[in-house]
């Protein structure tokens, strides 16, 4: 991270994520429980899964960047700036100012556009293609939802399972910590954290993570308390299995379904929170929230400029809806499975 | 003894991937006034569903698809729901297996019994309460006045079940359906509850449809026994006759596998295999996959009902064959 350029880091992380996803798929395929669950989910929620997949695809395309290869006549970009695939697709599409979707001329003043009729969703105040901006927001949203969950969930597990399993002073401490954090209104704590830590993307993600981990921590603690009393844990202990191994081999796998469900459902909450943060001015650059916040005032102009906010709002809504639907589907498929033990 | 309840060709189905599955498949039996009929079978045989079907309490998505249930001539399955509610709790009452969860945890038990009374009898609260108190005393709950205001979690399993019985018998129903009433209780408490049921039955002349898998309970309480397997009846007979001379191979296997009947040191006989799930039912006799006497027609042709002179009913090709051989010899 030190001295590593942002885009190289991002490329590396993308590759790691892809490899990790591949490993996950390989592991899941070997276990009947998960394989069948995946099939059931696909049967019931095809459309929503495809939609989420599309967003993921766009985000991936926007995560791979390299320098150079910019045609000479493109003026608005520095010659050596790292550009992603999405950037390159829309290279050279910048206009001077607002234009309506599919228009041939500028919105105010009717000056002719450089690429008439080619802007699907119009252009914004700086002339950038709105469709392009909406696509770029996908990566940001997935980053906010995904990265933050990747911070929050392990944290919650560490404290929750540890407190539930080992009990004693640690449990008292964790319970007090949870109570304290849960007593602070989430948004306010979030704001306080960001004001204190800084407004860059990583700080925002960390702040979001810190404010979201409490719910799952409570849940995993409660579940661990239940699991700890089950016979197979006593049996493992009686056999002399070390405690850590019990936790990893026996407790965690029984929490796996909760982890998946929580991850998906947390995702939408986080993305929606970021929208509010953007409006407060402490959001992440390039997010749909920022687009919406920026476009708010445009609605009061005469004539109305609506395509900016419509694009960002729709992109946001469709992703959240799809994730919610998939999340509900996952919960329906996994929970009864885990409760009743067999299909 | 006059016939009180007539179940005729009762069929209850649950939807499944391969169409509606009849978990209660063409069941017919009678229940006479004041008699105790035990409905015996393993888990999944459909006995609980039969009981629920009589009161039309089958949980969704299941439903009673055909047949009739005649209570003193009136078909309960055709009654409008408001009429059915008047039957429930007043003419036919039911107690369930799990007293722990069958009582409302946030309402005092006295109030729950009073509700059973006041749903059918427009008396005031004071009178209802004194009736509830009397019922508590009758079912053997010590210190009934104090217990009226207790909550379910204050009571032991046995006491809770007594409350359930009090609730069920409060309107002096003609029939009590008891779905495994002692399965969830300790053995000592089981005996007490069984004694209570027997005494109440004798005093009040209530007919009891007793659902159980425990042949010991059958021996203690039942007048007649009906054995179910995979949704169908296989044998119906008087208790003594069934227990001493079972005709159907399944009943024989059940009785053989009772531990007390096997001398010490000998291997306990078992019925090989497992109960087939609905999608694996053979077209013929459902027990054919595990029957030691299975021969040619068994797997493909459903056995017809055979009734003998003593009123015993059996569904078995082998029994039919041996009976034919007897009558022709």
């Amino acid at each position, binding site marked *: 991270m030190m001295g590593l350029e942002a885009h190289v880091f991002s490329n590396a992380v993308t590759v790691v994520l892809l490899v990790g996803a591949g490993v996950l798929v390989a592991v899941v395929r070997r276990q009947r429980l998960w394989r069948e669950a995946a099939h059931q989910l696909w049967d019931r929620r095809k459309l929503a899964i495809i939609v989420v997949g599309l967003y993921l695809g766009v985000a991936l395309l926007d995560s791979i960047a390299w320098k150079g290869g910019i045609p000479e006549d493109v003026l608005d970009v520095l010659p050596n700036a790292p550009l992603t695939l999405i950037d390159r697709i829309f290279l050279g599409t910048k206009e001077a100012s607002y234009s309506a979707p599919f228009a041939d001329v500028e919105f105010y003043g009717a000056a002719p556009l450089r690429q008439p009729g080619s802007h699907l969703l119009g252009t914004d105040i700086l002339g950038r293609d709105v469709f392009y901006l909406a696509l770029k927001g996908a990566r940001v949203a997935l980053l906010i939802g995904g990265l933050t969950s990747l911070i929050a969930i392990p944290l919650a597990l560490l404290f929750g399972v540890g407190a539930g399993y080992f009990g004693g002073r640690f449990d008292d401490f964790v319970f007090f910590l949870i109570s304290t954090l849960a007593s602070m209104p989430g948004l306010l704590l979030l704001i306080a954290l960001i004001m204190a830590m800084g407004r860059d993307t990583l700080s925002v993600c960390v702040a979001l993570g810190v404010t979201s981990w409490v719910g799952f921590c409570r849940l995993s603690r409660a579940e661990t308390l239940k699991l700890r009393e089950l016979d197979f844990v006593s049996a493992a202990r009686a056999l002399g299995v070390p405690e850590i191994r019990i936790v990893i081999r026996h407790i965690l796998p029984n929490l796996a379904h909760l982890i998946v469900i929580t991850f998906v459902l947390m995702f939408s909450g986080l993305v929606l929170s970021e*929208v509010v943060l953007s409006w407060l001015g402490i959001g992440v650059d390039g997010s749909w929230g920022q687009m919406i916040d920026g476009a708010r005032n445009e609605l009061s102009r005469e004539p109305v400029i609506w395509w900016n906010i419509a694009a960002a709002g729709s992109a946001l809504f469709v992703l959240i809806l799809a994730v919610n639907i998939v999340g509900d589907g996952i919960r329906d498929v996994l929970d009864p499975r885990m409760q009743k033990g067999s299909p | 003894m006059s016939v009180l309840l007539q179940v005729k060709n009762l069929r209850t189905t649950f939807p499944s991937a391969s169409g509606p599955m009849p978990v209660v498949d063409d069941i017919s039996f009678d229940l006479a006034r004041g008699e105790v009929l035990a409905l015996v079978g393993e888990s999944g045989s459909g006995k609980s569903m039969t009981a629920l079907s009589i009161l039309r309490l089958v949980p969704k998505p299941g439903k009673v698809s055909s047949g009739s249930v005649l209570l003193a001539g009136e078909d309960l399955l055709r009654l409008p729901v408001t009429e059915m509610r008047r039957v429930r709790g007043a003419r036919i009452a039911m107690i369930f297996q799990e007293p722990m969860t069958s009582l409302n945890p946030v309402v005092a038990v006295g109030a729950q019994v009073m509700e059973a009374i006041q749903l059918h009898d427009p008396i005031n609260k004071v009178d209802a309460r004194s009736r509830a108190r009397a019922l508590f005393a009758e079912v053997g709950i010590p210190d009934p006045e104090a217990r009226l205001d207790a909550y379910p979690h204050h009571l032991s399993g046995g006491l809770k079940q007594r409350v359930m019985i009090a609730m069920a018998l409060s309107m002096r129903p003609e029939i009590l359906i008891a779905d495994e009433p002692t399965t969830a209780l300790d053995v000592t408490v089981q005996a007490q509850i069984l004694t209570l049921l027997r005494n109440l039955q004798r005093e009040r002349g209530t007919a009891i449809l007793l659902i159980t898998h425990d042949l010991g309970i059958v021996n203690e309480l039942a007048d007649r026994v009906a054995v179910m397997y995979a949704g169908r009846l296989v044998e119906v007979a008087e208790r003594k006759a069934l227990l001493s001379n079972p005709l159907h191979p399944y009943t024989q296997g059940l009785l053989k596998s009772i531990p007390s009947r096997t001398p010490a040191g000998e291997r306990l006989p078992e019925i090989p295999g497992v109960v087939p799930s609905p999608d694996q039912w053979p077209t013929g006799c459902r027990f054919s996959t595990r029957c030691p006497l299975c021969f040619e027609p068994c797997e493909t042709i459903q056995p017809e009902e055979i009734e003998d002179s003593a009123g015993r009913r059996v569904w078995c090709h082998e029994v039919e064959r041996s009976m034919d051989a007897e009558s022709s010899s």
Partner: protein
Amino acid sequence: MGAYVIRRLLYGVGVVLGVLFLLFILFFTVTKPDDIARRALGEKAPPEVIEQWKVNHGYDRDLWPWQDWNDNLLFDHYRRMLTFDFGLSDADDSPIMDRIKAGMGPSLALTVPLLVFGLLLAIPLSLLVAFFRETYIDRMGVFLCVLAMSVSMLLYIIGAQFLIGKILRWYPISGFDPSLLMLPRFLAMPIMVGLIGGVGGDVRFYRTVFLEESSRDFVRTARAKGASESRIMTRHILRNALIPILTNVVLAIPFLFTGALLLEAFFGIPGLGSITVDAIAANDFSTLRTMVFIGSLLLIVGQIVTDLCYGLVDPRVRLE
């Protein structure tokens, strides 16, 4: 029950102290008083001005007790917060307490009706949907809820303002008039928007609660006694469902506070939420600190009240 109450209250006090500690860490150690001063006065302010400013705002002490037992920020912070001596705003030097007093009224005028109407709307709707479980009504209802939940509150507000304020011109887009007569006019829109934004999630949650209670064994017993479906719903299911519903209502209290944040800011209502939003824009740490403390206090009180109410509603709890 008495011991339970006392223990709960003591624990609540402990949590308040914990919250204050967390706030101290956030606001005094992560961001240094020097930085706060500079943000208020400007980067180029001379050191004497900064020092004076720090004195005025009480930032001039040592942070920790071990540095100076008699005069340190930690104890001072605790003392002042617990005595509600909130001091001056870092941004404009106005007394924070005054602003809070002024803001409480409008905030309550917004949030209390929001909470009450929200319940009045969500519970019957979810009862209805649960009553018709597994039917077309139920499925449509759930889908609509998911749909409604997937829209950001911001979009609801913007959309409502655009639609009703600009196009239809039914209500004023923003503004506030405390007089009893005018109050409903200005609160109508924020309350409506707040309700629409929140009803989806609430109905879905309550529906789940009602369905869970519906499948319990004691419902089957009640049916076997001959009770009607409506009686079962009201006398048995509702009573048991109150417990999780109560939890949810209390958990919703902070969201009132923050949802009110958006609503107040957008609709120009000068309540506590507006104060918070202004504080963020102005980097006003002391006001922000106070608002977080107040919000937490409200939430803690709400949680204690819920826990005590459990004792009333759920007889199983009283034993503990």
